[in-house]
């Protein structure tokens, strides 16, 4: 009957209840929707980083990450390949790469790029590149002079499909090596900076050009699940001599992304608190008004033998009803909004130039995380009851004689 009484009491002043209910609904809705958008942005940071070329794990020569020069290549990858074949979990994919800094030039322009030598079928399975080709075609394993370039680089170089592009870099002998390639495909990446930075050739073409027979710069590994990275990396490192091989997870390879992920956790929590503080004042105000309107009634309840704690409980049950109803509607509205946006996302391409600096995508797809929803609801529910304690205790403290005499 206490619950029934609480529920009926909140509807005694329908307009006031609707106003505070709206505040709770908007608060919960915004917590869920904006939380999901922030998670979406964070996820895309990670996905972009992983899909662009990082993968979940990379293995390099020990010195490569500090000094990514041709001398720090893995000259004989057979041992690494054997370990990968035996130690990777089911569903894991990997691809070898040669990756060196180079100068790209044509008749009109030249610029610094990263030349990536790839095994086309293996690379297609682990990174964005095959699906990103928008003109021409993807590389074939027997393309000794074919090159894939980004749309932004094509524009910058005022070139097009079928034209030549010369790459120059230092080979294993310390000599300048160069090779003329023909543009066989143009790709579009999530970020323009990627399109300007990376050019793709076949692995044999890069090895020949750099005089690096069988050698590679790195192996990138894509796992079936994000969460496996640390464990798999540790297993691989244990199987490989630490003096020659360094195995790193994406968190180590993309430290800024990892840091941003942690910052996002705090942003979301702070956002929840800010929303709640605004909402909390409304809850206190409404509950106080509801209590002061019914002083005489609290006097009656005390006269009937209700202990102060029962009156506190009664007022808290009213807040409970209000909060649970607001949370239910707010959650439903939040989920519906996220569902509506999950197909199309929010197109922020007008801001894309600025956002790319931060590694954000042009389109943000919200992603609901169970823990965020739980935290939003817990913040509203627990803090909502905590702030209601003040008016509730006030109601419990009225003396029956004074309260009954109240007009």
């Amino acid at each position, binding site marked *: *009957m206490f619950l*029934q*009484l609480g529920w*009926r*009491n909140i509807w*005694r002043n329908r307009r006031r209840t609707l106003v505070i209910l709206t505040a709770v609904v908007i608060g919960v809705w915004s917590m869920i929707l904006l939380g999901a958008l922030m998670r979406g942005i964070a996820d895309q940071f990670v996905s972009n980083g992983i899909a662009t070329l990082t993968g979940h794990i990379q293995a390099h020569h020990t010195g490569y990450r500090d000094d990514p020069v041709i001398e720090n290549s893995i000259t004989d990858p057979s041992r690494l390949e054997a370990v990968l074949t035996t130690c990777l979990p089911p569903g894991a994919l990997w691809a070898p790469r040669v990756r060196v800094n180079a100068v790209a030039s044509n008749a009109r322009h030249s610029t610094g790029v990263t030349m990536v030598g790839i095994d086309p079928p293996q690379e297609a399975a682990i990174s964005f590149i095959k699906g990103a080709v928008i003109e021409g075609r993807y590389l074939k394993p027997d393309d000794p002079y074919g090159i894939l370039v980004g749309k932004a680089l094509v524009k910058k170089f005022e070139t097009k499909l079928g034209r030549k592009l010369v790459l120059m870099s230092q080979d294993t002998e310390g000599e300048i090596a160069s090779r003329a390639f023909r543009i066989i495909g143009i790709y579009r990446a999530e970020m323009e900076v990627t399109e300007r930075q990376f050019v793709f050739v076949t692995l044999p073409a890069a090895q020949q050009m750099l005089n690096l027979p069988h050698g590679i710069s790195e192996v990138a590994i894509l796992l079936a699940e994000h969460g496996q990275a640390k464990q798999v990396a540790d297993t691989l490192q244990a199987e490989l001599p630490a003096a020659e091989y360094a195995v790193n997870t994406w968190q180590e390879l993309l430290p800024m992304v990892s840091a941003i992920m942690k910052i996002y956790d705090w942003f979301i929590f702070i956002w929840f608190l800010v929303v709640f503080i605004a909402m909390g004042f409304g809850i206190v105000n409404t509950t106080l008004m509801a209590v002061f309107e019914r002083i*005489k*009634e609290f006097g*009656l*309840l*005390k*006269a*009937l*033998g*209700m*202990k*102060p704690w*029962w009156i506190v409980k009664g007022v808290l049950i009213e807040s409970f009803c209000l909060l649970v109803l607001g949370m239910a509607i707010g959650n439903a509205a939040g989920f519906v909004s996220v569902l509506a946006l999950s197909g199309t996302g929010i197109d922020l391409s007008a801001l894309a130039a600025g956002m790319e600096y931060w590694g954000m995508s042009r389109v943000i797809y919200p992603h609901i995380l169970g823990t965020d929803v739980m935290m939003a609801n817990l913040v509203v529910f627990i803090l909502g009851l905590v702030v209601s304690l003040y008016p509730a205790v006030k109601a419990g403290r009225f003396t*029956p*004689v004074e309260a*009954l005499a109240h007009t």
Partner: protein
Amino acid sequence: MAMVQCTKVSKTYRQDTVAIKALNGVSLSITKGEFVAIAGPSGSGKTTLLNIIGGLDSADSGRVVVDGNVLTTMRQSELAQLRLHKVGFVFQAYNLIPVLSAQENVEFVMLLQGVPSPERRERARTILDDVGLRGMYDRRPAELSGGQQQRVAVARSIVSDPSIVLADEPTANLDSKTGASLLEIMKEMNEKKQVTFIFSTHDKMVMDYARRLIYLRDGRIVEDKVRKG
């Protein structure tokens, strides 16, 4: 043994710098099953005396014993417990819980006492039938007349089998016919259940119904007479 025993009870209220002596050394004894009216003009101390007997207010001095409980030494939580189990109240302004139906209002005290739901329901309906509200169980206070609301209040006060029922001017807001009918009901309850009833009133009709009339003036008992027959 006395159901209510007041010995030299005094109470003074302070309003700013003015002290108002509401009760001035009141002593009285009321036995089980009495039907007592406390009469007197406004400000004579009737309501204060009822509040003190009901444990709603405390005396400044003197001793109050209700059904063997010395109220003047009890803590607030013990007084709440006493009110819940031993005292029923009927107020001038009915004071029903507006969001509860007639039956729920009557059940409420039993809920606080921890009476199981089916028993609550049965007892509430029986007592509502007794006070003439059969078929009005689900009506909320706003859907009842003043007389009907006061009958619900009487039903609520008596349903938990209290030792005493304290009624503060119960007929003041009712017309004479409705008031008389309510008094008949209370008298019937008094006779049927042997519950002690104490009224405060300045209504002549209520005084006529009472078997004992205690007259207060300026916080003192000036007359205490028992009607014969």
